[in-house]
Structure formats: structure tokens, C-alpha cells
């Protein structure tokens, strides 16, 4: 009897200790994930109107307004609507998908703005289940504008249906809010910790490029300044070339080997050079881009297929080729063909299925970044 009482008390103590231990862990996790960004962010930013790459009608004003509200709540000083409009009229800014050096300088000197937030809406569908994909980036102002942060997300209402469909999101607004929260959280995290998003979770092997050429000229230890040119769009999807550029910028920045040039600056220089590319980048064009932007590598390519789907039935399809031309050798140092469908490698209960072209392309491009950086 004495023995059994001792045994019981010991078990009770162990259970109590275990409970305390796990509750401490749980609290620690809670603290870690819910660290609120302090109110002293005091980063003066301008939020550009949302660039619509979806090719459809989308609530762009609402998205921008919601982003401004989210950022203001987190302590950002956002340039007022009226002032931004005046500035844009004064400098005749019509292109909102990038920031050129003149505009960046003017933002700093005239408005005291430290960064410009550019958001591109890639896909928007209200058909049940809703889908949304967007990319945002923060560009520094002043003499040498650079990408301070870039992130994005592609979500579908049925990404995580859960048991009996409790995880389904049927309201497009709720899905959009979730996407914007994810993006703004990422921005805050990066600015507060001054740390990049990192390489993130590894991309699945099925998204590796299918045909690959990697030249020995590419040095894994070297840091390359990269200019990502718009991809030639041979698909039926409008703006697929521009969408691929954003994916490449986002994914290449994850690796320490690449310093990516802001596409707004690249666009400005290409317009200045009056570069017309018929069927890819010629070496003469490449030389001009290398010398003006002091880039080491040009990324270019062709989009053959870029399909999303609306509603319940369908699957995304993405097919593109990539070419990297290096400055020193004036040669193609990387060539690859990537193609995937949303249900590749899916056999049971839709496990592993990808519902948006955005989510699939992110992983496909991440593989290219990893292989170019020789991190396989």
C-alpha cells in the first residue's frame, strides 16, 4: 500500500512537471510567433497603386487601402494619398511596377520617403474556391535604389480543406486579407530583424528543371549582380513574362550569391538604350546592359505556358525556359527547361496538389536559383 502510494505520488509529480514544462514551451512558442513589431518602426514609405498583372478586374484600390492600414497600424509612416498623387503628377509617373533612379532620388529629396512599396497582383479569382496571388517589394529611395525586401504568396481557398472541409475559405475577402497579412508580416519581420527571409522550406524535387545546362564558368562562391529581363511571353496568359521576372527576383534574393537589380531601373535603361529584343538577348544587347548597369549576369527566358484555373476543377500548368548570360565569358552559362502541372506526383486524396501557378512557379524557380548557386 505504501509502495503504491509512493508510486502514485511520483506519477503525479511527473505529470505536473510535464504539464509545467509543456505549458512553458507553448508560451515560448506563442511569444516567438506573436512578437508584435514595436511601434517605433518610423519608416517613411510610399505605397504605389497596385500593379494589376492578373489580366482581370480586381479590387486594386481596396487592396492598396488595406495594405496602407495594416502598415500604419504596425508603425509605418505612410505618405498620404493626396501628396502621393501630387508627386506622381509632378513627375509624370505612370508605370507603377517599378522604381527608376530619378523617381527614387526625388522621393528621398522632396518627400523624405525612405522606401516605396510596390505590389503586383498576379492572380485574382472570386469563383469558389477563391484564389489570389500577389508579390510585394520594398525599394529604397535616394541615389542607389535597391530592393530591401520582396515576398509574395499564392493562396487558394481549398489549399487546406482539413477534416470535413473546416479549413475551406469561401470568402474572397478573407483569403485576400490572409494573403496581405502574410506579406505585411514578412515585411515587418525583415525590417525589424534586418534579416532576409532565408531560403525557406526546400522546394519539392518534382519541381526541379527537367533539362539543365550549367557551365563550369559559374563560380559558386562568387556574388553576381543579376539583371532579370522580362521573359518572352508565348503563353496565352497576359503578363506571364513580367510575372516570371518577379518570381526570379524573389527567389534569387534568397541566395547570398545574387544581388538583383531593381526591374524599374532596368526598364528605364532598356528604354534609354532603345533595346528591341526579337527572339532573345543578343550579345550586343547584353554588352550594353552589362556596361550600363554593371551587371554580371543577365537572366532571360521564354514562357510557353502559364495557366491558372478558376473554380473547383482544373490544375495549374507552367512551362518556361531560362537562360543566363555571363558578362566575362559572353556566353550562356545556364540553360534550363522547367514544366510542371499542379497534380504532378499526386496519387492519393490530392495530397501534394498545388492549386495556384504562383505556388508552383515559386518552387520551380527556387530550384533554378539553388542549382545556379550550386546548392544541390
Amino acid at each position: 500500500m505504501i509502495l503504491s502510494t509512493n508510486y502514485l505520488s511520483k506519477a503525479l509529480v511527473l505529470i505536473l512537471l510535464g504539464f509545467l514544462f509543456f505549458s512553458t514551451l507553448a508560451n515560448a512558442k506563442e511569444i516567438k510567433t506573436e512578437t508584435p513589431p514595436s511601434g517605433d518602426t518610423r519608416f517613411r514609405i510610399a505605397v504605389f497603386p497596385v500593379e494589376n498583372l492578373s489580366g482581370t478586374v480586381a479590387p486594386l484600390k481596396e487592396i492598396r487601402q488595406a495594405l496602407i492600414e495594416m502598415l500604419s497600424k504596425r508603425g509605418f509612416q505612410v505618405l498620404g494619398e493626396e501628396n502621393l498623387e501630387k508627386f506622381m503628377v509632378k513627375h509624370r509617373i505612370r508605370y507603377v511596377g517599378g522604381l527608376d533612379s530619378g523617381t527614387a532620388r526625388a522621393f528621398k529629396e522632396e518627400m523624405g520617403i525612405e522606401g516605396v512599396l510596390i505590389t503586383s497582383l498576379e492572380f485574382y479569382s472570386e469563383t469558389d474556391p477563391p484564389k489570389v496571388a500577389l508579390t510585394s517589394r520594398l525599394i529604397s529611395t535616394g541615389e542607389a535604389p535597391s530592393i530591401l525586401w520582396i515576398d509574395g504568396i499564392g493562396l487558394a481557398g481549398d489549399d487546406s480543406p482539413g477534416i470535413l472541409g473546416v479549413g475551406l475559405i469561401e470568402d474572397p475577402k478573407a483569403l485576400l486579407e490572409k494573403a496581405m497579412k502574410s506579406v505585411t508580416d514578412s515585411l515587418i519581420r525583415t525590417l525589424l530583424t534586418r534579416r532576409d527571409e532565408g531560403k525557406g522550406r526546400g522546394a519539392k524535387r518534382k519541381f526541379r528543371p527537367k533539362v539543365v545546362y550549367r557551365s563550369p564558368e559559374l563560380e559558386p562562391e562568387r556574388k553576381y549582380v543579376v539583371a532579370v529581363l522580362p521573359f518572352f511571353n508565348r503563353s496565352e496568359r497576359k503578363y506571364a513574362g513580367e510575372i516570371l521576372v518577379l518570381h526570379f527576383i524573389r527567389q534569387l534574393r534568397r541566395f547570398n550569391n545574387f544581388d538583383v537589380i531593381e526591374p524599374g531601373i532596368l526598364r528605364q535603361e532598356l528604354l534609354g538604350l532603345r533595346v528591341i529584343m526579337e527572339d532573345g538577348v543578343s550579345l550586343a544587347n547584353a554588352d550594353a546592359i552589362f556596361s550600363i548597369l554593371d551587371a554580371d549576369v543577365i537572366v532571360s527566358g521564354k514562357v510557353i505556358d502559364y495557366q491558372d484555373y478558376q473554380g473547383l476543377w482544373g490544375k495549374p500548368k507552367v512551362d518556361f525556359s531560362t537562360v543566363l548570360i555571363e558578362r566575362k565569358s559572353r556566353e550562356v552559362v545556364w540553360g534550363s527547361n522547367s514544366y510542371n502541372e499542379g497534380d504532378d506526383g499526386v496519387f492519393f486524396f490530392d495530397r501534394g496538389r498545388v492549386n495556384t501557378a504562383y505556388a508552383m512557379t515559386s518552387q520551380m524557380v527556387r530550384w533554378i536559383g539553388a542549382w545556379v548557386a550550386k546548392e544541390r
Partner: protein
Amino acid sequence: MLVYASVILLTACATTSDTYIDPNMDFGAIKTVAVMPFASLTRDPVIAERVRDVFINKLLSTGAVYALPTGEVARGVSRAEIQNPTAPSGEEGIKLGGIIKVQAIITGVVREYGEVRSGTTSANIISLSLQMIETQTGKIVWTASSTKGGISLWDRLFGGGGQPMNKITEKAVNDLINKLFK
């Protein structure tokens, strides 16, 4: 009777080849090539671009020859004023070789690409033929063709739709590259 029998047996032993290789050509001297835009006999012209991209990357990955970027080839075509870049003449080939400094140019035709049907069965098929023109002489030094996919006995019996288009494209391109380096 014996003569007839021997003729039949000898013709049965003969093989036909879809590959031509110039016996006087030194293929080792070819270091850089230009892959011209492929002609497409299919309904979708984008297919030819896709197959060309796959071929260029596969060719580069062999490490044996270097293929110029497509933009540089386009610049050369424009400067050489080639009317039909999918089928340049010998003179045009020589002129282009001098401008973009390549030892050979490769042209191609995508003859068939997509789904074929037979009764209730369907499968994907690709048929592709290539030729290489030496830029010093303007002569054709190599031609080959490859057809992959199509309806197999398995497809007829059990269905299934054959292999994905991308897979058979890679197979056809690999087959042609093997024929080139044979």
C-alpha cells in the same frame, strides 16, 4: 530458285537509316553552332520554339558544342537578311556563319506534335527532323529524324493516353543528339 531465295534473304538483311552523315566531314572541328528557328508543320507555332529550346539546352549539356543564344542568332539572321530562317540556303548559311562566327548551323522541322487517335485510343506523339549545314561550304553534313510516342500495343489494350508530351519531346531530342554524336 536458289537465286531468288538468296535475293530475298539479302534484301531482308538490308537496313534503312534515317540518318545521313557526310563521311568527309570532321565533326570535331565544330565548336560553336547556331540553332535556327524550327519550322512547325503543326497547328501551333509555339511548339517549334519549345522544341528548339529543349534541343539547345540538351545540346549545351553534352558539353561537346556550344550553341549561341537565340537572340544572337536572330541578330545574325537579321544582318544576313535571311528571308526564311527556318530553311536557309547554302549561301545564306555561309553568310550567317561569317557574321555570328559559327562553324555550323542546325535547322529543324517539327512534323508532328500532339495527340494522335486511333479508334478509341489516343496517345501523344512527336516527329522531328534536323539537319546541319557547315558554314564554310554551305553543304548539308548531317541529317536525322526521330519519332517518339504514338499508340503502343499497351495503349490499345489498356488505354492510358501514352506518355506526357514533355517526356517524349526529351526522348526525341536525346535520340537525335545520340545520332549526331554517334
